[in-house]
């Protein structure tokens, strides 16, 4: 076998980047050789996305340098990144549904013109034909992009990259929404690209795919590149060890096993493609964690519980009574509450006051009298003031617009809304994302307090660190199924990460 060329196509060296107080990258490095299929793996929050955003010119590193074929470069914009021969295909594909396949392939790219200055589509079609054939796109070029499958739209994106003569294509979780057959097809195209000298940076949580496709793999952990594995070192066990980190800590769990009665019972819940089967019980006073990787189906499961989507199959009961939520409003009536993942877009009205946001969806306590439908601004201010005090929300007044608060204080407002209406079950989706460390502790304390008052709490978190601290019990989801239940001394950060990679049988017993 020939030795790989010494000069990497792209080399990022000792990159650091922080957002506000959070350090996303701490001197991470990555180099991809020409024509190589290179894997990039790491737990959620390890810094993979940040590095890709830096390569794509979406954001700038604080320190560190990037070189393309040994030439140092500054990638100041996405336009500059494509000028350097890099193409990025994201999980959510960007294409114009009503335009044709050919128009989508050529979107934003310079196009050949006729002598009259009009776009010469027939010439373009001739030029593009070999590329279409190479990626195996069989759909007619004049079909609307929206009539194509997700996999075919991936092929459009790859064709775009090739028309642009990209030397490196970055693929972020490409198989998340593909069927098994479509995956196999994508893999053979990736191998074809590699053989033709186009490098692929393959970002995925699915270790089988990584092992199958990649010649070398870089592992990120806590913002650092902790290992580059290739050749005989590239094994599943090696990868998992690098992802989890050497030390397997055992935090003592002192909490009592909760013996409250079952509030929410879920059996055989399914909504394809993201939720295959979920069954669990949630007890009064319990904080149950739902861990797993991004895309494992946790948020989709939460949407089913909350009536935002309807399940294909399965049953739910709340306090023994059948629970069939058709809308979020119905779920709330049945005793559910939700602190959504995207608090700025789904949780709050940013222009409205703290008092307004706190009272949203729970207005009866504000009525001035039991007979008339009018609410009392005085009562609203007083109740808001009390909540602000109880949750130590840092605000100048209840009338301050919520958009001016910090992330942690905004999150407290969303939680505060449910504090007052006291649902039987409260679901919190990524409750501390983007929240500073101090507020995070306060939010955790608040969640424990809610459970202490008898609420049944379900916490979804992608941060493996968060769940062991906070929860009595953790269910780990992988590929649409609950693959592991962890409690007591088994409930550790590394156990969650291991289970996230669906290593139920083959445990790391180092």
């Amino acid at each position, binding site marked *: 076998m020939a030795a790989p060329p010494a000069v990497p196509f792209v080399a990022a060296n000792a990159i650091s980047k922080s957002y506000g107080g959070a350090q996303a990258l701490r001197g991470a490095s990555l180099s991809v050789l020409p024509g190589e299929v290179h894997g990039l793996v790491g737990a959620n929050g390890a810094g993979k996305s940040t590095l890709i955003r830096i390569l794509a010119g979406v954001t700038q590193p604080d320190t560190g340098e990037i070189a393309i074929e040994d030439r140092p470069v500054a990638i100041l914009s996405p336009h500059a990144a494509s000028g350097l021969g890099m193409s990025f295909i994201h999980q959510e594909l960007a294409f114009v549904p009503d335009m044709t396949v050919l128009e989508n392939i050529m979107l934003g790219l310079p196009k050949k013109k006729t002598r009259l200055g009009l776009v010469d589509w027939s010439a373009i079609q001739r030029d593009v034909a070999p590329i279409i054939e190479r990626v195996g796109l069989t759909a007619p070029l004049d079909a609307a992009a929206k009539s194509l499958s997700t996999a075919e739209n991936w092929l459009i994106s790859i064709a775009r990259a090739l028309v642009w003569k990209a030397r490196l294509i970055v693929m972020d979780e490409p198989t998340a929404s593909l069927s098994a057959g479509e995956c196999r097809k994508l893999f053979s195209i990736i191998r074809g690209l590699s053989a033709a000298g186009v490098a692929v940076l393959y970002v995925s949580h699915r270790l089988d795919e990584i092992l199958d496709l990649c010649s070398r793999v870089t592992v990120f952990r806590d913002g650092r590149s902790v290992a580059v594995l290739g050749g005989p070192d590239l094994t599943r066990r090696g990868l998992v060890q690098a992802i989890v980190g050497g030390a397997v800590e055992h935090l003592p769990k002192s909490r009592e096993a909760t013996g409250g009665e079952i509030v929410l019972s879920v059996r055989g819940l399914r909504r394809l493609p993201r939720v295959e089967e979920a069954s669990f019980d949630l007890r009064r006073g319990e904080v149950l964690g739902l861990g797993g990787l991004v895309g494992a189906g946790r948020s989709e499961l939460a949407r089913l519980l909350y009536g935002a989507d309807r399940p294909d199959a399965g049953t739910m009961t709340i306090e023994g009574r059948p629970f069939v939520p058709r809308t*979020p*409003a119905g779920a709330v*009536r049945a005793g559910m509450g*939700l602190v959504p993942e995207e608090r700025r877009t*789904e949780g709050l009205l940013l222009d409205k006051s703290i008092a307004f946001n706190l009272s*949203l*969806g729970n207005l009866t306590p504000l009525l001035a009298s039991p007979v008339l439908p009018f*609410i009392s601004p005085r009562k609203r201010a007083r109740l808001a003031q009390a909540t602000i005090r109880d949750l130590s929300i840092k605000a100048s007044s209840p009338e301050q617009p919520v958009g001016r608060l910090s992330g942690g204080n905004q999150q407290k407002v969303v939680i505060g809304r449910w504090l007052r209406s006291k649902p039987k079950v409260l679901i919190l989706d990524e409750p501390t994302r983007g929240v500073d460390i101090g507020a995070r502790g306060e939010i955790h304390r608040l969640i424990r307090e809610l459970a202490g008052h008898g609420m049944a709490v379900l916490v979804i978190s992608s941060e493996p660190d968060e769940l062991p601290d906070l929860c009595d019990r953790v269910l780990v989801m992988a590929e649409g199924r609950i693959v592991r239940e962890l409690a007591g001394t088994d409930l550790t950060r590394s156990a969650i990460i291991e289970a996230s990679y669906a290593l139920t049988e083959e445990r790391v017993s180092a």
Partner: protein
Amino acid sequence: MSDAGYRRRLSPGTRAALGVFARYGTIIGLLVMILVFSFLSPHAFPTYNNFINVLSQASLAMIIAGGLTMAVIVGELDLSVGYAASLHGVLVTGLIVANHLPIPVAVLIVLALGALIGVVNGVIVTKLKVNSVIATLGVGTVLVGLSFAYSAGVPIVSGVPEAFLQLALGRWLFGIPNPIIFMALVFGGLWLLVERTAIGQEIQAVGGNPAAARLAGINVDRIKILGFVLSGMCAALTGTLLAARLGSGTTNAADSYLLTAFAAVFLGSATLRDGEFHILGTFIGALIIVLGFNGLNIFGAPTFSQFVFQGAILIVAVGLASLGRSLAES
């Protein structure tokens, strides 16, 4: 020079001033306009009678604007209001003259029809997921057709009872023309509804962030339909009052109210609050437009200048307010 990285930064004082301007600019403009007209025409403009006349004239457009505000607060547009008001005017006179229904019954039927049109608009928008511009334009066009079908395009003029005309021409309370009373009741009622009731909070939430409102357990579709219903009922009231004022049911009579109502609603969104639609804002926006018209009238300005005024004031006021806001936040 060391100012390679120099960027123009506004001082905190300037920014605060711009923020105030963005919120109170329209009110300042209204006061300035009143002062200028009063100064230039001290005998005709700033008199009780002139103000009462102006308000009475404007009340019909203002009622439509109040209803339209409800539709835009829930995040939709209602382009059917002008056509609907025309149909209601034709229908209410027809019911009284041709079908000999008692006046209160005829008016109630028309108000109920207004609500029904609102339900139709709302259901098309929320359940069929048709964009509200298209949905209400379509419904409005159908209403024009119905109006012609009902009246065969001929205004109903003869046999309109005096008691019906009194609805618009009478002065039942303190010598104030009835349309002003109706307008005040509509604005007072809508303001209370939006600002002081639980439903009003949900209305504001749905308009502000439908996703968050839905996840907070609010029935977003129902609230949107309610917005259209209120808009439809206000159109019905305006149509009725217009028919009473004109003493006839005329197709197309109220069509032009749509533009005035839109101008008032959007001027209102640039008033007191940061680009948010609200009832008090619409009231002030409508005042600016009608007093501006009136002042121009008193000076004998040609009719075309009033349209130029209405269009220009809208763009200038909304544009300056949003520019002021973005500068204040920069």
